[in-house]
């Protein structure tokens, strides 16, 4: 088999989009860090390295037999939870939060792994349930607990952003399964009533971020500072952007964390509306393409798994971009594929790899298969 053959995956377009977004991210990381480069290996080179690993993981995992995933679901899930527990015991502490494990000199965030394992375990559990009337509360207790456990652990690390994102994506995955209509309505009502209660679970700085979001002008220097500076950056990009490497907001360090959580504002400032919409569109295309894979797999486990994984990807993207343009509080979620950060990039490679592993058990992959 020649090299091209080895690289061939079920969906070359999906792979192409993936690689393009990663490279575009590297370009913007280069621009964001050029004026005040941190010591050591340049971040964009590190990111490039992670990108290569990530694509390798994607191509590798795309060849895995989904049956293996099915068999290992609970084991992988347990492993992920154990790693998070480990952060409590020996985690690397930063800013009063224990999220990282040190592995051979690299920091790694085990909470990222749950973006793979939660969809896997939920799909594994739900696919076999027999419920002629659709799932009621009784059927959903176990999957909800499977979600709540690791999410609470991540929340207590404390990492509000990741916990919220995983929970939102996982719950929306459940809504996509065979849930009774009546239950959907009840759940929506309960959320509206309980949301204020969550306030008391938050830490001071997390509350401050929420308040600052509701009234950013008032908190311009605290957490609101980031929101305002990010909005100025994106807004000042106008239609065509200031040009590559010309973003004044990012160059003058008005934007904190501009190479990681706020990379999208660098895109908006330097590439303008065109660049920002391009990224937005490509993310949507990736999601659309992924969801279409869930159609007609002829196998409930496969459909659930693909939907669950793509929801993790799309919710993380949406929450990050909404945060950057001031539609959501600053909670510290990186933008998949573009933000600087090795663990997330690698996990996203695995995520898309797992998605492509699902080819359908009865038929050859039907790319863009007709809906009807």
């Amino acid at each position, binding site marked *: 088999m020649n090299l091209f053959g080895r690289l061939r995956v079920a969906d070359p377009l999906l792979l192409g989009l993936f690689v393009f977004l990663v490279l575009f991210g590297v370009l913007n990381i280069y621009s964001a860090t050029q004026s005040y480069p941190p010591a050591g290996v340049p971040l964009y080179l590190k990111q490039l390295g992670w990108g290569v690993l990530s694509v390798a993981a994607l191509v590798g995992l795309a060849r895995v037999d*989904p049956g293996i995933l099915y068999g290992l679901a609970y084991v992988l899930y347990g492993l992920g939870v154990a790693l998070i527990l480990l952060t409590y015991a020996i985690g690397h502490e930063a800013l009063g939060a224990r999220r990282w494990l040190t592995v051979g000199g690299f920091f790694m965030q085990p909470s990222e792994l749950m973006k793979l394992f939660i969809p896997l375990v939920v799909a594994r559990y739900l696919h076999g349930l027999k419920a002629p009337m659709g799932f009621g509360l009784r059927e959903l207790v176990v999957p909800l607990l499977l979600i709540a456990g690791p999410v609470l652990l991540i929340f207590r690390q404390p990492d509000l952003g990741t916990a919220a994102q995983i929970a939102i994506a996982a719950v929306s995955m459940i809504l996509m399964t065979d849930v009774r209509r009546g239950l959907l309505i009840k759940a929506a009502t309960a959320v509206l009533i309980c949301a204020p209660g969550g306030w008391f679970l938050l830490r001071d700085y997390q509350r401050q971020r929420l308040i600052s979001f509701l009234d950013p002008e008032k908190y311009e220097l605290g957490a609101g500072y980031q929101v305002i500076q990010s909005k100025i950056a994106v807004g000042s990009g106008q239609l065509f952007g200031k040009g590559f490497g010309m973003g004044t907001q990012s160059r003058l360090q008005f934007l904190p964390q501009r190479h990681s959580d706020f990379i999208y504002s660098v895109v908006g400032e330097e590439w303008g509306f065109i660049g920002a919409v391009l990224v937005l569109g490509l993310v949507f295309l990736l999601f659309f393409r992924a969801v279409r894979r869930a159609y007609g797999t002829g196998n409930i486990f496969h459909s659930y798994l693909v939907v669950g994984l793509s929801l993790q990807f799309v919710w993380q993207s949406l929450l990050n971009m909404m945060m950057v343009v001031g539609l959501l509080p600053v909670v510290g979620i990186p933008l998949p594929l573009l933000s600087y950060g090795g663990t997330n990039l690698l996990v996203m490679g695995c995520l898309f790899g797992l998605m492509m592993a699902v080819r359908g058990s009865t038929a050859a992959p039907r790319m863009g298969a007709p809906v009807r």
Partner: protein
Amino acid sequence: MRGQFITSGKEERDIRTRLRVLLILASVLFGFLLLRLWTLQIHGGTDYRLRSERNRTLFLEVKALRGRIYDRAGRELAGNRAAFDLFVNREAAGSALRESLDWLASTLRIDPAELTKRVEGAAERGREILLVADLTWPQVVEIEARARDLPGFEIRHVFVREYPHGSLAAHVLGHLGEITDREIAAERFAYRYRPGDLVGKLGVERQEEVRLKGVDGGELVEVDALGQGRSVRDRVDSIAGDEVYLAIDLDLQQAAEEALGEYAGAVIAMDPRNGEVLALVSRPAFDPNAFARGLPRATWEQITGDPMKPLQNRAIAGLYAPGSTFKPFVALAGLESGRITLASAARCKGELPFGDRAWRCWKEHGHGRVQLHRAIAESCDVFFYLAGLNTGIDLIAETAERLGLGRRTGIELLGERAGLVPTREWKQKVYGVPWVEGETLSVAIGQSFVSVTPAQLMVAYATLVNGGRLFRPRIVSRVVSTDGRRVVDYPSEQLYAVELDEASAALVRDGLKGVVNDPTGTGWRARLKGVEAGGKTGTAQVVRMTERLKPGQEESVPYLHRDHAWFVGLLPADDPHLVVVVLVEHAGQGGGTVAAPMARAVFERYMATRGAAAL
């Protein structure tokens, strides 16, 4: 794919419907984002472009009040004082800058060239430049009176780190310094620091930086077109840093500082029952107040260039031969293995011929017939030469390592060193030659290769007297948020349960009691009224002397060649509540003479402040 359900037609249709709804909902959210981008970039783009280019608003940071550091009884060791600083904004000062600077120079009696240099040296435009720090009150009044003629200048009220006791416990508290680029990039400092900020560089200030720092606030100030008439558009309050309580006892710390006097060296005291460090002195010290505003380069170079190394914490980073304070470990190794017993006796004639030379005892005319108790109490070298030979280097090294020598204690301060307990393998590896028996003799009296830090020796003795519980020495005991709602207690941490033969350990402890309380004990200067203390003296040779010194000759030896003096004190001797290690560098005299009285001073303060009844 065993046991997996193939979808029925109904389920297949159902999931398709739901996925279609999902895609529609997602499209709505993506649409929202698209709309938002359009509002920001196309609709509001011109306005935002303007705001990014002509940033007429200034952010004036209001630094969070740094958390205070207290001793165990809540007495302040590090706090904050108020100060008045004069700032200038070059752009706002405009054409009046030159004239204003001249007036300030003559009023404040500062060289005008120096002031000009400070203004022009600042690289970043549009940022406030700190022109003069710590104005006196009369200076403040004088400048404020002329404020109208000094556009762009502003006096601001700031807080400066203050250490009310000066250099007391300097190596525990540490000091601040300007944040480096590397530190700003570090994950643990993300979001919270800017260039020019001060961060802890040493000691507790460094270890607890993240908690002490708090969250900075600030004011949003708008400058009008003329660069004057600012208005505060808004402000956000800072959140003060957490308060840190140490295990350190200010009374004992002061006693230890006074006892050591002008000598270079270290005193460290710990409660052997829980590992709490009650006092830690290292001399020479530094005054952390000098660092509190960032240090001028010249002063920094002076401190780092000082051959006495005042920044080094000798209690944890100073490596010294333990001298006779090592003998109890040799005794323990011998007793536990049965190589020596209570009945083992040596005849000390002031020296022991071994190999091709005579090995001297510190007592020129010898101790006569000596058994274990008296050998420890009077520190007979000849007895321990023989005990060492009988026991052998392997068992001695094993025992010393078991009690924590030759490795870091894990104390939560920067720069701790491990020391060395030599073994046969180590010698072969490092020197490429085998161990020779003569070296066992040297090791038996704590000389030659063996080296320890005072903190390590303290931990080893504490483990010897507390039944084998090896604690990590603990400096910080709790951290409390300013509103008192968040409390983090740092628990005692027992690292190992060391196996000790209790009968052997009791015999050694009996010897340590004799050191202080026997009429002929070498540590009699640490003796107390009403309570029996214990301890061990030590004198560590720095260079080998060929001739014995006559009394009074000590001064003739060059400073760096003089002996170090040790004393390890235990209070009370039975079930101690306090282990004190005193090390006096180049004291020139024995540990019994110089170091033991220092330990006694600490003992006395302990009993005076806590009451003898507490023991």
